[in-house]
Every structure is written in C-alpha cells, then in structure tokens.
C-alpha cells in the first residue's frame, strides 16, 4: 500500500534518514519502533509531505507521492496524527473537526462529525469547548478524530500514547484496533513497545536513520525489541 524506498531526509547537513526502505501492507497495523533520535518522526513527516526527502521514493497505492505537498498527500488518502497532537487550541472541538475535513468538498462532513462524536463521546460533550482546554487524552482523541475527518485509507500515528495515563493509553490502542478492524490501514510510531507489539501485524526497527529489522512480532523476542527500541543495537553503539 505504502512503499518507501531508500529515502534520505536531512536537516541541513545532518542526515536523519540514511536510506530507509519499508512497506506498509493494506488493512494491517505496521509499527515503527526505535530509540529517540532514530528518525521515526522524520519518517512520518516525510511521508506526510512536511519534509522533502533528498532522495529515494515514496509510493502510495502504486502512485508516486515523493516530495508532494501535504495537501496533495492528504487528498490521496494518507492522514497523519502528529506527535504532540497539535490541536488548534483556540478553536472549538467542532471546528477542529471541520478543519480536518478541509481537503474534502462533499456534503457528508457534518455526518462524519456526528460519527466521530459517537466514537468519541468525550468530544461530543465538549464540542463547543476550545481544544486547548481539553485534557491530554481528550486532545489525542481529537487529533485522531481530526485526521479521520479526511477519510484516510492509511492513518499515520506518531506516538499517540506519549505522555498519557496508562488507562488512556489502553483506550488509544483499543481505538487503533477498532479502526483497523473497520478497514483503515495504520502505520504507527511508538515508544510503548509492549503495547505496540500487541497490536502490530508487522514491525520495523529503526536505528540511527536505518531500518535494522523488519518482520512480525513473533520473529524477535520482546526483550530484544525493547532493548533495541530504547537503547539501540550493541554493534551500533
């Protein structure tokens, strides 16, 4: 569904991604794990079009989307739930959702908002409240709902459990599983290895800008994944 081939993305002279290749299968949950600074967020931002890769190729449903702007990418069916949620703080919850549907021009936007409120009752209660006044968990729900308003075929999620209480983390992962069961493909970056391996169909390990492992959760002992996701491989450090 999403094919990333040998992409290099750099900040100035520093290469954050040094030739990353991976693929995301349709209808599955694919996780990208790795220590801080490995380039996970850079990968997400490159796919979403916020960063332009210096070289390499990104294809979505067989169409080349390398270096296209974010508006084009969201319209082709990829939406990103960004790290730190990035809700519009001085907009109401309802307006946040409308903004999520900005790329659409159909007349089912309000119906979709109603559906989001069914899925996230907490947002329904707070629909006229400014997003900046919501709790961290509620903001995360809102960020997910806002991304879903674009009706993506592939949902990118960058550390959705970051800074949230364990119960809320459970709920976020339940939502991820539900969305996937309904047919949305998911590409997830996570620090919470244990939870991520529970939901993932496939996972990749990213270390220092390179993919060092790709496979199914059973292929590697969880302890080793945790070791490498938090600390990196011994031979690389």
């Amino acid at each position, binding site marked *: 569904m999403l094919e990333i081939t040998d992409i290099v993305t750099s900040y100035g002279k520093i290469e954050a991604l040094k030739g990353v290749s991976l693929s995301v299968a349709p209808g599955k949950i694919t996780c990208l794990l790795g220590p801080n600074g490995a380039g996970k967020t850079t990968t997400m931002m490159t796919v979403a079009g*916020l960063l332009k890769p210096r070289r390499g190729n990104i294809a979505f449903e067989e169409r080349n989307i390398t270096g296209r702007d*974010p*508006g084009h990418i969201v*319209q082709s069916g990829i939406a990103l739930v*960004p790290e730190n949620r990035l809700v*519009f703080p*001085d907009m109401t919850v309802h307006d946040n959702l409308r903004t999520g549907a*900005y*790329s659409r021009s159909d007349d089912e936007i309000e119906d979709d908002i109603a559906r989001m409120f069914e899925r996230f009752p907490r947002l329904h209660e707070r629909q006229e409240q400014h997003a900046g006044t919501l709790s961290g968990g509620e903001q995360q729900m809102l960020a997910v709902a806002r991304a879903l308003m*674009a009706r993506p075929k592939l949902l990118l999620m960058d550390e959705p459990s970051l800074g949230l209480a364990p119960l809320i983390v459970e709920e976020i992962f339940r939502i991820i599983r539900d969305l996937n069961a309904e047919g949305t493909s998911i590409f997830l970056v996570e620090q919470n290895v244990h939870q991520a391996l529970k939901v993932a169909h496939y996972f990749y390990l990213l270390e220092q800008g390179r993919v060092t492992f790709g496979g199914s959760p059973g292929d590697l002992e969880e302890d080793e994944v945790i070791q490498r996701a938090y600390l990196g491989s011994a031979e690389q450090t």
Partner: protein
Amino acid sequence: MEFVDYLQAVTDGVMQGAYYALIGIGFTLIFGVMNKINLAYAAAAFGGAYASLGVAALIGTGDDFGLPPLIMFLVSAIAAGLFAWIVYTICFRFTPDHYELATLMATVGAFFLIEEIAVHSTAGEPMDFPEVLQGIVDDPMIEFSDAFAIRGDLLTIFLLALIAMGLLLMLLYRTKLGLATRAVAQQRTAAQLCGISVDRTNATTFIIAGVLGGLAGAMIGAAVGVLSPLLFVPLTVKGLIVTVIGGLGSIPGAIVAGLLVGGLENVFLALRGITERDMYVMLLLFLFLAFRPQGLFGKKAVRD
C-alpha cells in the same frame, strides 16, 4: 473644560478611532497568521486611497470629483488589497521564513518605496479628498445642544467601519476561508496536514488586511479632507500602538484599543493641544508595555 466638552471630545475621538481600529486589525491579522510585522501596511493602505483619487481624477473634470465618496472607498479598498498582495509577494513570499529580521527590513523598504512614490507623484503636496456627505445632506451636523453635536461624516465613517468589522468577523468565523486562516494562525503544521496551503492563506490574509486598510485610508482622507504622505508614519505608529494595546493577534483587542486610543487622543488634544497630543499617546503605550505587555486581550503565555 466642562463635562460636555469632554463628552464631545470623546465622542469625536471614538468615531475617529474607527480607522485606528481598522489599521490595528490589519496589523494584528497579519501578525496572528504569520507571527510577523508588516511595517508597510499603513503605507499600502494610503496607497489605496491615493489610487482612488487617481481613478476619480481620470473620470472627473476640473474641481469636480469624478466619483461619489462611497465609491471611492470601494476603489481604495480594492487597490489597497492589491498593494497588500504585492507587499506580501515582494517582502514575505520569497524571504527566508526563519529569519524574521529579513521580512521586517523588507517591509521597512516597502514602506519607503510606497511613500516615495506618493511623494513623487503628488510633488509632496496634500491632495484634496472629498467629504463623505458631500452633496448627500445639507447639514452634516446632528446637533443635540449648543455644546454637543455629532459630525455626520464621522458617524458615517464609524458605521462603515463597524460594518467592515462585522463582515470580517463573519468571514473569519463563518466561512471555510476563515477556518483556514484561524487554523494557520493557531497551529501551522497541523493546518498543513489538514491540506491547507500556508502560502495561499498568508496571501489571502494580506489581501483581506489590505482591503480593511484601504477602507481606513479613504476614511482618513474623508475625515481630514486631504491625503498627504505626511500621514504615513503617524498612522503606522498609531496602528502599531493600537495593536500592542489590544494584544498582538487579537481582533477584538484591536477594535477596543482603536476606539480607546481615538477617544483618549481627542481628550489629550482638547486638554493639551495638537503639539502635545501624541506624547501622551506614546506614554499610554509605555504604560501598557510596562504593566500589561500582553495588551487588553492578548494571551499571557504563547503555546507552542
């Protein structure tokens, strides 16, 4: 001075404050969306007013203004919108985003460029601008007593400004364009992820601000009776003061602060005369910066 004199001064001032408010809104809109100051803004606004004089001169003959004043307001608004877009393209579109001094200095340059063009094309002479109520009503004063009256032209300008502000708020809060503008102002990265073009939104914001400025420029021309390049600097300074007092990025703040500065300014004028008036307005700015730097409606801390 008696109470009624203060009342008269404040009333006139608040009505004239309407165009300070419009200029302040322009500065604040651009700051809100781009986090940058456009110092050429008031100059471009007057550019619009001059353009409306030019159009009127092309149509009219001799002493006669070729256009009714209210049409001139419209021409001024459209021309200023165009000039604002040009300023955006020259000063912001291609200058590095992370280097804020670059755009600031570019707008200083644009300010002087516009001012020079105005000076050269009018030989530095003030140009007559038609009064708003010219030929519409005989007695342009609404008199309540010997000591208190409302100037009909100022009232017209005031009401026009209120309508313009109302339309702006509708645009911002009732349309998809407004949604995009607010989104870019509040969280630029997320706005991009929603498919909003930051560049197009910035350009549109400049045009909207320019239209308001053009309206204000024509209003000032109509209220003062003349247009002169000597107005450019004072209006830029007043606009910035209004923006700071209202709270950077706050539209209601700019409206309230515009009317407040207009009213107080006229009281200072009545008490101390034209030569000292602006000193007190400046003092007001420093008081705000010292004791309430976030302004009337600004936020204390800015969220990332």
